[in-house]
């Protein structure tokens, strides 16, 4: 029996970067095939080649044993390939139905197409048990259902091979479980699924076969039943890695920062942060768990002075900060609060700057970096060189544009900048997002070291593993409010997952 999809010696180069090198892959029909690899291993490039966003330099693709020439996403759709992107490609203010027929409207007049689509969607929903209200407006649906719309969209176009790119990044553990049930159902109907992820647990839980990519090459193929997370992790990074953080028990002492009933409204007047109170103690890591978009970013922005609060107050460094007496980000820094933002590209760095310039962002007014009139370039460069050596930033070139460092090295530049200021309180958001495993370990160690030196750390992460491994105390946020607090020792994935979906009380019948 021919393979549903087969790649033969696919290579792709971007300038100096060999993104894919002689990739061979065979995916039997009706299986779920996982592809794992670190960020930058070439997974996304490979999928983009299959889906026609890029053309391979060499090699070719076969679908059902026949060679296909995929030059555009339309070619891919015609070959029966569908893709669910990491960031959904949906028109938010359209209904589910309108989104599904987008690009396949079936003629100039919408009416006929919509009628046919409604019937077809009902059939698909029934066949694959993908229930959804086809007239709902997409932006009003929870993320899990939006993803279902993406899957329906692909199936509606006749996809027999479905590619999912990091599908669980935005989902709660419960939603993720649901997704995997759907994938199983699809598989039973003969659909072939390609699952791209860097989460080993998902691979183990849901796939039949798994292929591992490292630095642009396909380094191993395994049957899932014959492998283990440790085995896969080792294949991914090429060396033994530690998936846990070694740290002693916390020795929390004085409260360094306390926030009382913080609330913040967005420009539309929607309350994004709802009466959040918390205390940060010296020598303790407080983790904020929650599905992305439930007020964590707003909390970080308010605490760090980027957005003013509308209600409540912060007690910090002997000052009372409230809506009447706000402090901006520069003033908070002067009070020795450091902030590693969640999104280093959007906020933490100026990617067009050379590394030594980005390495003083926020501290650019410090006398250390300034002469009377001009900035002291030499001081900036010397310090950047020192820090690059101390933090093992590669390449250690202060003149390289920040954009040209890998994610992990960019993050090291940001964390070094904030930590080296010797802050009393460190706010740190998604410290290891888009960072490869080797660097994750290093970053985690630095965070624990800072805690042990008696600083207070507020950690926001959507990675539950990270929250559980690093935190001493965990707060869970949902819809802008704190819905629970627990000692890290008592936390397990299931409890946290339920709290994150705010379903803890209903399902367990106990209070959090």
């Amino acid at each position, binding site marked *: 029996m021919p393979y549903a999809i087969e790649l033969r010696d696919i290579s792709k180069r971007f300038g100096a970067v060999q993104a894919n090198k002689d990739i061979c892959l065979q995916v039997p029909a009706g299986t779920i095939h996982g592809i794992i690899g670190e960020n930058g291993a070439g997974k996304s490039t490979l999928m983009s080649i299959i889906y026609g966003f890029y053309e391979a330099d060499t090699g070719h693709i076969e679908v059902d044993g026949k060679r296909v020439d995929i030059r555009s996403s339309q070619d891919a759709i015609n070959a029966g390939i569908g893709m669910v992107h990491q960031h959904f490609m949906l028109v938010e203010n359209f209904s589910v139905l309108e989104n599904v027929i987008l690009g396949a409207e079936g003629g100039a007049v919408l009416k006929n197409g919509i009628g046919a689509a409604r019937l077809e969607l009902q059939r698909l929903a029934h066949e694959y048990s993908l229930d959804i209200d086809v007239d709902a407006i997409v932006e009003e649906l929870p993320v899990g259902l939006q993803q279902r719309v993406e899957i329906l969209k692909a199936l509606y176009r006749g996809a027999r091979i479905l590619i999912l790119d990091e599908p669980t990044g935005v989902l709660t553990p419960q939603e993720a479980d649901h997704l995997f049930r759907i994938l199983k159902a699809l598989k039973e109907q003969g659909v072939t699924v390609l699952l791209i992820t860097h989460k080993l647990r998902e691979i183990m839980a849901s796939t039949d076969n798994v292929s591992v990519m490292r630095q642009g090459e396909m380094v191993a193929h395994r049957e899932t039943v014959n492998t283990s997370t440790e085995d896969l992790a080792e294949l991914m990074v090429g060396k033994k890695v530690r998936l846990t953080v070694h740290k002693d028990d916390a020795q929390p002492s004085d409260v360094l920062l306390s926030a009382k009933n913080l609330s913040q409204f967005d420009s539309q007047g929607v309350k994004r942060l709802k009466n959040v109170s918390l205390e940060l103690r010296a020598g303790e890591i407080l983790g904020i768990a929650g599905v992305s978009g439930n007020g964590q970013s707003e909390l970080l922005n308010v605490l760090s002075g980027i957005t003013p609060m509308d209600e409540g107050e912060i007690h910090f460094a002997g000052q009372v900060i409230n809506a009447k007496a706000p402090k901006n980000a*520069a003033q908070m820094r002067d009070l020795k609060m450091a902030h590693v933002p969640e999104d280093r590209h959007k906020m933490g760095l100026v990617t067009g700057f050379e590394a030594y310039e980005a390495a003083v962002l926020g501290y650019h007014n410090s006398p250390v970096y300034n002469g009377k009139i001009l*900035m002291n370039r030499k001081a900036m460069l010397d310090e950047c060189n020192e820090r690059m050596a101390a933090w093992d930033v590669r390449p250690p070139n202060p003149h*390289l544009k920040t954009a040209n460092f890998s994610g992990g090295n960019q993050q090291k530049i940001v964390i070094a900048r904030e930590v080296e200021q010797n802050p009393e309180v460190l706010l740190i958001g998604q410290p290891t997002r888009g960072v490869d495993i080797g660097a994750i370990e290093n970053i985690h160690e630095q965070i624990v070291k800072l805690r042990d030196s008696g600083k207070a750390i507020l950690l926001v992460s959507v990675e539950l593993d990270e929250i559980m491994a690093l935190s001493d105390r965990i707060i869970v946020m949902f819809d802008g409010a704190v819905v629970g607090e627990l000692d890290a020792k008592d936390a397990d994935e299931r409890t946290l997952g339920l709290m994150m979906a705010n379903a803890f009380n209903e399902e367990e019948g106990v209070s959090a």
Partner: protein
Amino acid sequence: MSQAKVPAWVNVALIPLLNILLAFLVSGLVILAIGENPIEAAGYLIYGAFGYDEGIGYTLYYATNLIFTGLAVSVAFKGGLFNIGGEGQAYIGGLGVGLICLSLDHTMPLYVIAPLAVIGAAVFGAAWGYIPAYLQARRGSHIVITTIMFNFIASSLMVYLIVNWLKEDGRMAPNSRTFEENAWLPYLHELFSPLGINIGDSPLNLSFIWALLCCVFVWGLVWHTRWGYQLRTLGTNPTAARYAGIDTAKVTIWAMLISGGLAGFVGLNEIMGVNHNLLLNFTAGYGFAGIAVALMGRNNPIGIILAAILFGALYQGGAELAFELPTITPEIVVVIQGLVILFSGALEHMFKDRIEGFFIRRAVA
């Protein structure tokens, strides 16, 4: 992921040169189409711009205005602001210069008037940039729209002021009286002749030197001061600027003040350097051409000087060309200028990626 480096000269010299060559090639086709010999035309153009002392003087005189407006556009652009109002700011800057000269030329010597005129040009130009800046920073109106509008307001205001208040009594021409000679900026040929250097008579005057000093000032300000750091942060990543605690409204307003002030210096060259009276429409589109100059000069002072000289050469050489070959009208010269802008600005990426790719591959191999 390794990142090979493209040699600097490729970006700084090779690509702009290729773009200009292509623009001239297409211009050649246009000239061929109207029945003239492109080689001959190019000869007239180049000779007119660089072939003799007076020609060079004129080229640099035009370039002076373009350096001022190019710098103005680039400072605003470094802060992420598209200042389309250079024309109006230059016009009002000229008003500042004119008022200083008209009120002091009977009583004060040049060394008093000149610095005051510099301040007048900067303050008036900056004031005209301030209102759109304030509206953007504090009220959220878009600066592109407001600066365009302010060009028209400046134009009407100048007509009103000159016709009703500043016009010389008993004359029909809409301009002020001619300043006394002690309010004239010295021509460079006058300054050089006592040294025994003869550079030919042209309108090139002291404001050219001031333009070069402004380039140094902008270079230092943008790349070597804290304020410049904040400006560039705001211009490339406004979210990062807020994260860094930069007062974005304040930086925006100051960027436009400096931008407007630089544009205002066109008035020094035109009013105090050449015309010696306050007149209508002396800005003649320099404010808009400054956008092209900044674009082509990649918002870098050295690039802006080179681009300004290129455009100055097109103005001067183009005038010579239209004079020598009557079938080539001034409009055709505008077409050539337009093609240069098109190829070096709008179509910048046509070759860029391919050439960079070539050098990266070569560096890797």
